[in-house]
């Protein structure tokens, strides 16, 4: 399993209710359901992935997060997870507000556009960076709202949402982000993982 998922799993308490928005093939919620007695739901747009989730016995709803989150009542989940998709939404800010409405806590992970490899790529080559986490060309990328973890960190603070935990993931190394080390984390981290609350 991806390190990212292991970190997310550790952030989630047992015996809770979790919605995974854009749950892919259901790897994360399958683990949560089987190992932490969690009542899981997945929302997924790809028909192929929906079939994979059904085959795993997961409760999965085919749908589009930007239009289908509306159906869930306020605070109906203990956690809502959004893994590496915030940047693909048309209105990331509205998405964050919507996630915080549905979930008591929200876990959002962000591919970090501030990572040094991307900065170096842009500085030396002068073209849009392509990496393992961001493998697309500028013209075919679904990632229309890229940000750095520094951008996201400051955004959450400016909006007065509470940050319970912010973690930087660099290769296999997980470390805490705080006000004093944000510059350095923003330089080295490939991924930011944030546990937030309204």
């Amino acid at each position, binding site marked *: 399993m991806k390190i990212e998922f292991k970190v997310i799993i550790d952030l989630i308490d047992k015996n809770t209710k979790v919605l995974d928005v854009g749950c892919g093939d259901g790897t994360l919620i399958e683990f949560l359901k089987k190992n932490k007695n969690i009542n899981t739901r997945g929302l997924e747009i790809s*028909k192929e992935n*929906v*079939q994979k989730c*059904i*085959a*795993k*016995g*997961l*409760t*999965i*709803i*085919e*749908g589009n997060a930007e239009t289908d989150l509306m*159906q*869930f*009542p306020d605070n*109906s989940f203990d956690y809502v997870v959004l893994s590496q998709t915030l940047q693909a939404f048309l209105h990331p800010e509205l998405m964050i507000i919507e996630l915080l409405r549905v979930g008591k806590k929200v876990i959002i992970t962000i591919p970090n556009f501030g990572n040094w490899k991307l900065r170096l790529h842009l500085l030396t080559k002068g073209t849009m960076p392509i990496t393992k986490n961001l493998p697309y060309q500028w013209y075919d990328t679904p990632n229309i709202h890229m940000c750095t973890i520094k951008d996201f960190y400051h955004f959450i603070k400016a909006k007065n949402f509470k940050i319970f935990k912010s973690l930087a993931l660099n290769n296999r190394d997980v470390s805490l982000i705080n006000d004093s080390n944000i510059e350095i984390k923003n330089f080295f981290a490939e991924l930011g993982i944030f546990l937030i609350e309204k």
Partner: protein
Amino acid sequence: MNTFNIKTIIIRKPLKLDCGKTINNYPIAYETYGSLNDKKDNAILIFHALTGDQYVTGINPVTNKDGWWSHAVGPEKSIDTNKYFIICANIIGGCMGSYGPGHQDPDTQKIFGINFPIITINDMVNAQYNLLDHFKIKKLFSVIGGSMGGMQVLQFVSNFPDKTKTAVPIACSASHSAQNIAFNELGRQAIAADNNWNNGEYFSKNISPDKGLAVARMAAHITYLSKKSLQEKFGRKLQKREQLNFSFDADFQIESYLRYQGSIFVDRFDANSYLYITRAMDYFDLPGQFNGNLSNAFKETKTKFFIISFTSDWLYPTQENKDIVIALNAIGADVGFVEIESDKGHDSFLLDVPDFLKALKNFLEKSYSDN
């Protein structure tokens, strides 16, 4: 019609219908497949659609044709008869052995015709609920149905919130739309316009409104298909001729096909039953039973739902299926949903659509192994 092989139970318990009348000692015709296990926790009640019957799979002993859901039900199939015990009953109002307009009125000793009481989806479900007692089943593993069968699934869970572990409503709606009612009314008026219908009294005269019923079927049949599938299958192809005939013959293959569908339907279906069943569908409005709030229909239930729609179904489109999902999510119910890609229209649920059959099989198997 050969009625020799039809299994029937007589329901002694009176049933008060939505129309206010009460029926007693009425027959329910049914069929079963597979076997009930010792724990009696492997039973599935399948609800049939408008023109279906209890002969879900195998050879229908009355028509000698394949059962209507042979693709989905059978050994190793999605609804696996090696694993589950399947019960399907003919709905009341129907014409395959259950109490309907072709039966004799005990008061007058005459065939009911349109003196049979108006029935609803709720009445159908309440009548079939007696099968649980008959087989001494405390809780079903699943209730499953497409189209009108799906409406019965919804009504069943609403009426009996703890009587089934899972529920699979397929290609259906919680409330018949104006367009749905309009198409049904077209069918009913086609039957009524046939002089042989004679206000529903045709059995005694040994006639039947075949032309009207055939037209009703032709119109309905169009609603079960998508524009794309019709275009691909028939287009403007001519029927056994090189050029247009400049007449009102069936020049086009599609005309010939529809006429054929109409003609074979009248051999197996009763016109009065068609009126009663379409009426029941039109009266179906589950949110309407709960002050306009569909969520309240399912408030009590722990049943696990799996809702399936088809991309090209314009009779009960995805959005109407999704409305059920939304109502269930609003109360935190356990509901899964998938929209299956298919260009075969509403009929997709009856056909060999692999993604659909796979999803249904996986859902049932995984839910069953959670026992």
